[in-house]
Each structure stands twice: as C-alpha cells, then as structure tokens.
C-alpha cells in the first residue's frame, strides 16, 4: 500500500481496497497463521471520545497479531482537559507506540495529527468527517455478500451527519457501484460529499422514499436517524417511521438483498429482520477484526504478494 496514514476513504483506490480486503479474507480463513506476526509491536489508542466497540475491535486485531496496545485512557483523566493540544498529544504517544489510532470529535483532526507524526496513524472517526476502517469492513461485507460487479447499493437514514455514509459513498464510487441515497429532505448528503461524487462521475440518485428503489437494490445500508437532529419532536415523528424497516417491508426486495447497519441500532431495523437471510449486520460487525488485522499488518510492514 502506498499510504502510511489511513485518514480518509477517499485516499483508497480500488487497488488499495482490493489489497486490504483480499488480505482480510486470507486472515479470516486462517487467523492462526497470523498470530505472533507482530510480537512486540505496540499500538497507541488515542480515543478523545468514547467508542467502546471500535476500541475493542482495534485491540482485538492488534492482540490477534501478537502485539499489544497502549491506551491513553478515558478523556476526562487525560491531558486534554488540561488544555494540551492534539498535536502535542500524538507526538508524545508516538514515543511509546509503533502506530496510532485516533478517534476525535473534531473534523479534520486525523489529517492534522498525521502531519505531526511519522508513525502510521489510522483515523478511527473524526467528528462528522471520515471513518475509513468502518468503510473497509463495510466493503468487505458487501463483497462477501453481493460482490462488486454490477452492484446497486441503497444508503438510507441520516445521510447528513453520518460519517460512515460519507466514507462509504466515496469508496463505492471507487468500485463503480450505483448509489441511491434515501433520506428525509433535511438529512440529505452534505454539499461537499455531493460535490465530490459529482466530480468523480459517480452514478448517484437521491430519494425520500425507499419504496421507489427497494426492488432494484442488492444492498440496503441503514443508518439511524437521531432524534436530536430535529428542532422539534413532531418533525422527528413525522419522518422517523418512514425509514424503519421490518420483514414486511423487505417483501418488496430482491431475495438476495443484503441489509447492513453500522450498529448499534435503535428501532430502524425490526428484530424480525434478524432471522431472515437479508440480515448481515452482525457479520458486518465481526468483520471489523480481520479487516483491521489486515490493515494493521499492511501498515506495519506485512507484505502482501
């Protein structure tokens, strides 16, 4: 791979994506073969906002590769509250660890932090910005279930604030998928993302109604619509129901439709979908470990022939 730092899904070419996913598939097929491969390696976890699952997923990945983690701990007790800059924090942690993982509430923080360190840095979410490892595990799940050829993906829910959505849209453009965005008017894709997709020549359509497009989809990626995004409760109630699915909704879909969700869900996917062949969201969550193992292995100098 050409990139030392993994900041944005935008930087990942189709070849990069395929390299990581192929490597993840090898690892998933025989995880034992990779145990101990990075013995003695330390991964520095800098989580400036809580994200237990992402942190556990990176921890698991590093430990399965034989390495270990150093964790700066919860934000309250760290120097952040004392006013230390992010630039200083990552330079200090770089002295302890061989690679860094950063989760931070400000957009652009991972890009800025990467300018201050030589050790490889992975963006594990920066505000409403990017979350490229989520995107890679999403792509891995899509490739496993639907493949990348002649692919039609629907992405539904809060498209405005959902960083997983923004990263995924860029990556889907790189694998030439047709993309349909389904959301309330007020939660459409942000201008900058639409601008990029347009520039990249992506095949994109926007809808307010899932029914319009559901029968054409190979993948339906559902995200949560957050109540707090709406100025008042009644406005929220007016739209929320339209973007919830259950097994009844999916009767209009292709038999092999794959339903995904970055989790945790609240009520946007009914539990009755879990028992259908459509449900791929738990598989998606588990895929985080082999995908992050693959990425770390490649970043830390593992060769992929």
């Amino acid at each position, binding site marked *: 791979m050409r990139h030392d730092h993994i900041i944005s899904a935008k930087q990942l070419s189709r070849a990069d994506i395929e390299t990581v996913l192929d490597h993840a598939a090898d690892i998933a097929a025989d995880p034992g073969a990779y145990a101990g491969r990075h013995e003695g390696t330390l991964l520095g976890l800098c989580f400036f906002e809580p994200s237990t699952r992402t942190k556990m997923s990176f921890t698991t990945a590093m430990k399965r590769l034989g390495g270990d983690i150093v964790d700066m701990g919860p934000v309250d007790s760290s120097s952040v509250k004392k006013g230390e*800059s*992010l*630039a200083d924090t990552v330079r200090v942690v770089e002295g302890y660890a061989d690679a860094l993982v950063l989760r931070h509430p400000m957009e*652009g923080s991972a890009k800025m932090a990467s300018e201050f360190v030589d050790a490889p840095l992975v963006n594990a979410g920066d505000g409403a910005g990017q979350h490229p490892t989520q995107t890679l595990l999403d792509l891995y799940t899509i490739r496993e279930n639907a493949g990348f050829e002649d692919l039609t993906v629907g992405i539904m829910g809060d498209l405005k604030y959902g960083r997983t959505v923004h990263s995924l849209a860029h990556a889907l453009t790189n694998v030439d998928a047709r993309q349909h965005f389904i959301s309330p008017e007020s939660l459409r894709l942000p201008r900058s993302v639409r601008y990029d997709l347009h520039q990249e020549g992506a095949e994109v359509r926007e809808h307010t109604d899932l029914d319009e497009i559901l029968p054409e989809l190979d993948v339906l990626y559902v995200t949560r619509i957050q109540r707090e995004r709406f100025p008042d409760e009644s406005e929220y109630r007016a739209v929320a129901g339209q973007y919830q699915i259950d097994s009844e909704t999916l009767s209009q879909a292709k038999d092999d439709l794959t339903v995904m969700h970055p989790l945790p869900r609240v009520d946007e996917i009914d539990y009755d979908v879990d028992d259908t062949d459509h449900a791929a969201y738990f598989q998606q969550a588990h895929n985080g470990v082999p995908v992050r193992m693959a990425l770390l292995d490649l970043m830390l100098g593992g060769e992929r022939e």
Partner: protein
Amino acid sequence: MSDQQLRVSKIRNGTVIDHIAGGQSLNVLAILGIDGTSGDSVSVAMNMPSDRLGKKDIVKVEGRELSQDEVDVLSLIAPAASINIIREYDVVEKHRVERPEVVEGVLECPNRGCITTEDEPVDSRFAVVDDGVRCEYCDTIIRDDIAEHIVAE
C-alpha cells in the same frame, strides 16, 4: 490614464490593483494584511464607474510590490483584478490575477467542528475548487462569501 483614475494620486514605486469589484477593496486590504499600522502609504478609490464591472474599486500601495502569493489570494475575491507594478511612475509590469491551487492561513474555516478552529499549531488550508474554496481538513466548502472568512490579523 482616464480622468477617474486621476482622482487617486499617482504613485512613484509600488502596486496598483485595478478592476476590483465595487466594494471589495477593504477585503483586498485585509487579504494583504494592510491595516495602516505599518506606515505604507495606501490610496483607495471606491465605486468608480467601470465599463467592465459597472463599479470598481482601485487600491494603490506605495512602496510595496505584491508577491505572486498575495496576488493569487486576491483572485478569490477580485477575479477580474489587474495588477500594475510601478517603478519611477511607470508601469513596468502588468498582469491579471490567477487562481491559486491552495490558500494557506488566509481564511478561517466556518465549520466550528473543524480542528483548524481549535488552538492547534496549524494554519488553515483551503483548496481552490471550481466555484469556491474547500477546507483541506474538514472538507467544508465556502462559495459566495469568501471575504467574510478572511482571518483577522
């Protein structure tokens, strides 16, 4: 030289920026970091009649030749501007502004969630795109109101 331009006194050595869109000259001065404290002698003519622009502003800066970087940044708010470098009352160079690829440290990101708005040792950096500029950190695009985001010196 037309009668209109004569309203502003000629300068001996320095730069004349002509064809600034009417009302933008103070933003031009802000971009150049000219606030009168450095002792530069500066003349400004505002809302002069112009065939090309309807109304235009003119800025004359005595004793200072603008660098290409400064000129590039001007293009964001004064795309029609022409730059005349004056030596001994003569125009020795005349060129139009060109859009730069990147402007650094000149504009402040309007996104309050952007890391460049925090107290970090980093300058703002915007890529110049088709019809605006775009924060290289958070991707926020500024289109119409670029001058409002000029960093206060």
